[in-house]
């Protein structure tokens, strides 16, 4: 049995997709521009200088610093490894690694435009809270088994 490709339906769907992408293109380019600025302004040295040595304060700082950072995930592992070597707590490092990949301050405008302010606020607040919860749970579990 031959399946006929629905060319006209695909053309209409493609037209819709192009319109969608074009409509959000200014915001995508703006966010990419912001990524460039953050990559230059928020350096690993700057991030390291934020930590104080207090586990509680550092966990909060780690969450905020991770949310402000941009780049490939492995960068958070390298910075996290250096922070551990500098005596920063594993709670703070875990929170930093988690918020690095789950929170995106730079991407907030695009997320809000596509999903709405309420969805964006709820999702990011949950991600923020869970960065703290998971960092504590991970270190506690690790200590339980070690």
């Amino acid at each position, binding site marked *: 049995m031959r399946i006929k490709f629905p060319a006209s339906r695909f053309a209409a769907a493609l037209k819709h997709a192009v319109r*969608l*992408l074009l409509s959000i293109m200014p915001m995508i380019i*703006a966010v990419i521009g912001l990524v*460039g600025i953050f990559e*230059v302004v928020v350096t690993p040295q700057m991030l390291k200088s934020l930590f104080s040595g207090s586990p509680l304060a550092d966990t909060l700082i780690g969450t905020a610093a991770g949310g402000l950072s941009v780049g490939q995930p492995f960068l958070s592992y390298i910075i996290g490894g250096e922070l551990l070597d500098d005596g920063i707590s594993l709670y703070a490092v875990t929170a930093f690694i988690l918020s690095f*990949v789950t929170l995106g301050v730079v991407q907030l405008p695009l997320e809000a435009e*596509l999903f709405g302010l309420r969805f964006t606020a709820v*999702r990011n607040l949950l991600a923020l809270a869970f960065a703290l919860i998971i960092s504590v749970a991970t270190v506690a579990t*690790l200590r339980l088994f070690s």
Partner: protein
Amino acid sequence: MTKNTPHKNRSGRIMLFLVAAIYLVIFYLDPSKGEKALFAAAGTLKIIGPVLILVLFLIALMNTWIDPKSIAKHMGGESGAKGWIIALAGGVLTHGSSLVWYPLLADLRGHSVKDGLIVAFFYARAVKIPWLPVMVSYFGLPFTVILSLYIVLGAWLQGMLADKMLGRVKREG
């Protein structure tokens, strides 16, 4: 087709104008820093651009072949465990910048995919399979396994909470 797209608001253009203004200020204050930022942005665009074109075709193919009722059935309000498994596995297995997934997810949301599943998908993306060996080398296997498991559990819990908080669990059909 989606209910929430395309967008007609001007926030994107305003944001683009603001970012361009920030670049002008940086170039004025420190041209070398401005150049570095511009190169970094161009590098990101080079990576994201081709994937965005792929996403464009994915959205078109999805709207051509997949019946909206079928999406609602598998990922809508009545999807149950199957919906959670699809969202969590999708989050863990997909890679690349979140930016490129936004248009596709927004389109799916317009097809009655519940908010909790989108939230769960986003959080499950924190498990970066290609980077796990690097994480193991820095923090050890036990840390990597425990953190990855908690991320998936956290993604599911956040999805459930988001559904309750947003109250936008759509019904099938």
